[in-house]
């Protein structure tokens, strides 16, 4: 039997990871390449809403229907990534009653279950809603952890034989005889799990088909292949609060606009967002007014947000796409639907398919469609099973409660660990070694950190997205160096560890810059003191390229003079 067809998937976001899983489960050979760590692009920079479809129930009912279908699927296959919060569309006095009714009717038309709550009932559910909220529509929105979701998809793909290459940038699309036959990839630091400090290299990965799932970067990949993919990146800001002001997703019930959603996410709430077109998905301004506006606007729904502590803000870039003939002026008018661009039909370039647009909630459906398409092109007949087979970690959660007492962890630590690890909790947390809490803000123990290092190699940001370590209120102030220590213990050398540690601190700092007032400013000053002075992160000779010859230091005055009265050199 001939070897199975081999597909290269470009992009380690939800779509790419979903496609890789689907292809691998259908028996195809898969290599996924991603320029950063998994979720590096838009997937890692969204507010973690698992749409019920309610948001699109008036403006885009096709998307709304897809959302509610996939919402139900993900509750089954990704239980450990989903927090079933429910959602509210709340109406303030100045919001249109007509729109409220349209929303309700739209949900009904799209099979989205609803319940209308009075203002008092809504406040009973969420006590911090503003007193003048008149009424609300309950919908089955939920919170989803995009990191965990993508990592689980990638892990599943790997289990089915896929090769996952992070920190590997596509530098060219190889076209031979008018067809795409592979990609040229620059590995940042060597193939396989990323290892700093060893030599990187260029690799040509040949493929029977290439899937361009590069999101905001899809246009760039298209360019390399000589086809025009008009992605219109649009940025949006999200602000992370220190605590959960609400336990239910809160949307403002009005036609699409900025700053109209609060999503409870793990220990935090995420406020969002804005919508502004940018030229370059990698280089755009992050401006304080965007953060201020989001907080001010949402405080109309939840007044306590005004004085609440924010821990950071981040920006994501939507990879919006619209067919060339539409030409919207305002990015908010561009559809949120996804498009499959079959380059053989469209551009007379066989061997490559691009997927653009869409949203995380429907990632699996998009993946299914593109996998169907690729299979059809490659003449493979296999059914999609991604809607039926649970992701790793969501396999069987019945035994979870027993874990709580088993691992000798303090209650909230055990609970959070099991929430994150799902059905993997047993294999990860069951250790004979001491298992102290490394990140106290998010309750992450050493065993979970070590598990993440095993999965992701030397990238501490990859450890972060797997575990939430450094994502709590101190933003790594108290645990970044402990993570570095774990990396060192795992056998990586000083320089590798230090480089990874630097990257982690830089990434944490990037978001904190937009939260530096009040409580988080105090926090940042303390973290600065810890990092810069205690650990001398500012001017550490050990950061230099040369190894420090610690043996060259003398043994000190006591040893030199043989007694406590020895010379102190003054």
């Amino acid at each position, binding site marked *: 039997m001939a070897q199975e067809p081999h597909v290269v998937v470009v992009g380690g976001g939800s779509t790419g990871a979903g496609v890789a899983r689907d292809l691998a489960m259908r028996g195809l050979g898969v290599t996924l390449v991603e320029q950063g760590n998994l979720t590096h692009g838009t997937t890692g920079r969204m507010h973690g809403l698992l749409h019920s479809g309610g948001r699109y129930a008036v403006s885009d009912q096709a998307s709304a229907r897809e959302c509610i279908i996939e919402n139900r699927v993900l509750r089954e296959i990704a239980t450990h990534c989903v927090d079933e919060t429910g959602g509210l569309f709340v109406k303030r006095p100045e919001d249109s009653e007509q729109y409220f009714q349209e929303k309700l009717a739209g949900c009904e038309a799209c099979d989205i279950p609803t319940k209308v709550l009075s203002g008092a009932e809504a406040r009973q559910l969420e006590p911090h809603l503003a007193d003048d909220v008149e009424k609300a529509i309950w919908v089955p929105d939920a919170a989803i952890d995009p990191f965990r979701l993508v990592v689980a998809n990638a892990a599943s793909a790997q289990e089915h034989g896929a090769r996952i290459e992070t920190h590997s940038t596509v530098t060219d699309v190889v076209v031979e005889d008018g067809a795409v036959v592979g990609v040229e990839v620059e590995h940042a630091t060597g193939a396989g799990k990323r290892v700093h400090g060893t030599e990187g290299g260029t690799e040509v990965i040949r493929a029977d088909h290439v899937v361009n799932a590069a999101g905001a970067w899809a246009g760039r990949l298209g360019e390399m292949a000589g086809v025009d993919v008009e992605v219109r990146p649009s940025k949006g800001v999200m602000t992370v609060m220190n605590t959960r002001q609400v336990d239910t997703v809160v949307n403002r019930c009005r036609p699409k606009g900025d700053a109209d959603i609060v999503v409870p996410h793990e220990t935090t709430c995420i406020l969002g967002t804005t919508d502004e077109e940018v030229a370059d998905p990698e280089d755009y301004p992050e401006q304080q007014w965007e953060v*201020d506006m989001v907080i001010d606007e949402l405080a109309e729904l939840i007044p306590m947000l005004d004085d609440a502590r924010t821990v950071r803000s981040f920006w994501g870039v939507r990879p919006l796409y619209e067919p060339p003939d539409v030409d919207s002026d305002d990015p908010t008018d561009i559809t949120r639907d996804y498009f499959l661009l079959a380059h053989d039909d469209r551009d007379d370039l066989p061997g490559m398919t691009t997927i653009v647009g869409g949203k995380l909630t429907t990632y699996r459906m998009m993946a299914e469609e593109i996998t169907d398409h690729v299979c059809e092109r490659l003449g493979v007949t296999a059914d999609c099973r991604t809607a039926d087979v649970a992701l790793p970690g969501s396999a069987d959660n019945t035994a979870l409660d027993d874990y709580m007492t088993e691992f000798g962890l303090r209650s909230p630590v055990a609970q959070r660990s099991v929430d994150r690890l799902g059905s993997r909790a047993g294999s990860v947390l069951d250790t004979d070694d001491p298992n102290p809490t490394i990140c106290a803000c998010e309750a992450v123990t050493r065993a979970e950190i070590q598990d993440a290092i095993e999965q992701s190699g030397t990238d501490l940001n990859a450890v972060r997205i797997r575990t939430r370590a450094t994502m709590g209120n101190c933003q790594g102030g108290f645990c970044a160096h402990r993570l570095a220590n774990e990396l060192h213990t795992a056998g990586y050398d000083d320089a590798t560890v230090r480089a990874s540690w630097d990257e982690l601190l830089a990434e944490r700092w990037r978001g904190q810059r937009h939260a530096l*007032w009040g409580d988080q400013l105090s926090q940042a000053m303390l973290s600065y003191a810890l990092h810069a002075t205690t650990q001398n992160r500012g001017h550490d000779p050990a950061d230099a390229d040369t190894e420090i010859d610690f043996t060259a230091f003398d043994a000190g005055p006591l040893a030199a003079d043989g007694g406590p009265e020895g010379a102190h050199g003054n």
Partner: protein
Amino acid sequence: MSDSESDSTTTTAENRFEPATPNVGEKFDPVALHDDTDDFDLRPESDSCYKCSTCDTNCPVAEVDDDFPGPKFQGPEQWRLKEQSDDEDHEIDDSITECSNCMRCDSACPSGVSLSQMHNTARGEYVDDQMSKRSLKYWRNRILANYRTSARIASTLPRLANAAMNFGPARWVMEKTLGVTSEREFPAFATETFREWWQARGGAAASKERAQARRRERGEPVDADKKVAYFHGCYANYNTPEVGQAMVRVYEHFGYEIVVPKQGCSGTPMFANGMLDDARRHADITVSSMSDLIEEGYDAIASCTSCSMALRQEYPELFDIDGIETVASNTFEAVEYLRIHEPLRETVQSADIDGELADEFAYHAPCHARSQGLDRQAVELFGDLDGVGIDDVGDSCSGISGTYGWKEEKYETSMEIGDDMFDHMESAEGDTGLTECPTCAMQMEHGTGYEVRHPLELLEAALVD
């Protein structure tokens, strides 16, 4: 938002931390989440914690017990990790019962986080939801926390109770069945309670006459507005009425008329055992009578620093009762109040003392006095008093923390925490102790064998003929 944000931050910061005044947790107005509950929003507390760990380094339990995760974990960290709608899955860690509620973390915190409020709330939730109501430990704690009830019964036959409570075989049984340590001797019940004495003496009417007579002697207007309501608490009523009597005589000496209103237990031992419903019942009684009196111009005075702490800080943090804020902001410790309103220091300077109390005292400042900013009060005041010497035995916790040190499983920890204080008492001059807190007094006596007195008794001896 930057502008308005910086404004609001400044105001909050001012409310939050004012080093010159005691940190009594007034940084934010507690908002009851629902009308019918006492659930307060602790988000501001969690937001204010920047994890510096100063609370952990000030925790006397963490100092001697490496397994105790400390106040930062018990308070803001656990609250934040636990806070989620599917609450039933997120349990309170059982280490919350190791906290002794000394409340040192409150005053240690540079950000004004009311850690004790978070601990009290978590402990209440732990006891309500996770502790078996059929366990002996629950009933042991409930009995210890409701000391007032036992004391009321015992006081009807004080001599018999005193004999029975310290009867060896009975104590052995109490330790084996209930887990009440047999190492300690139960405090003696007075043969006449403070309230009995007060009634026999003529109550408020007699006090008014005496106060007016003293005002005349002092050259003050006879109808001067000097009236206080005395919160004696359980211990001064049932065990040490001499402290309550000293309070009455000292206050009348300064021309104050006193009333002794209907009152419950302050709730201190109930908070410490997570029995918030019990505490609430008692608080209802006290707040109701005290707030009426305060409306009439009285101030509330306590001679026990844990009682004044409860009324001032824990009540408004934990309960939503009509008038509770009024009570909290008009409650004072007995000596503190006189320092504010009378030339107490000068009066003491020109006084002297002889007789039984002309002595050298080893003074221990209770943690709850420290939290109210009163830890140097007795030393500074009596340092100027002829006839007595006073040594501060340092800033350690006595370790007993009310009912904590009475629990068989906590006894060793309690004594280990107390070690510093015992050492300092031994090396201080004299062999009489002095403190405001009745349970600290038990520990001082237990660890050193010293007799222990209350500052009000010294004031009485110095000032009242």
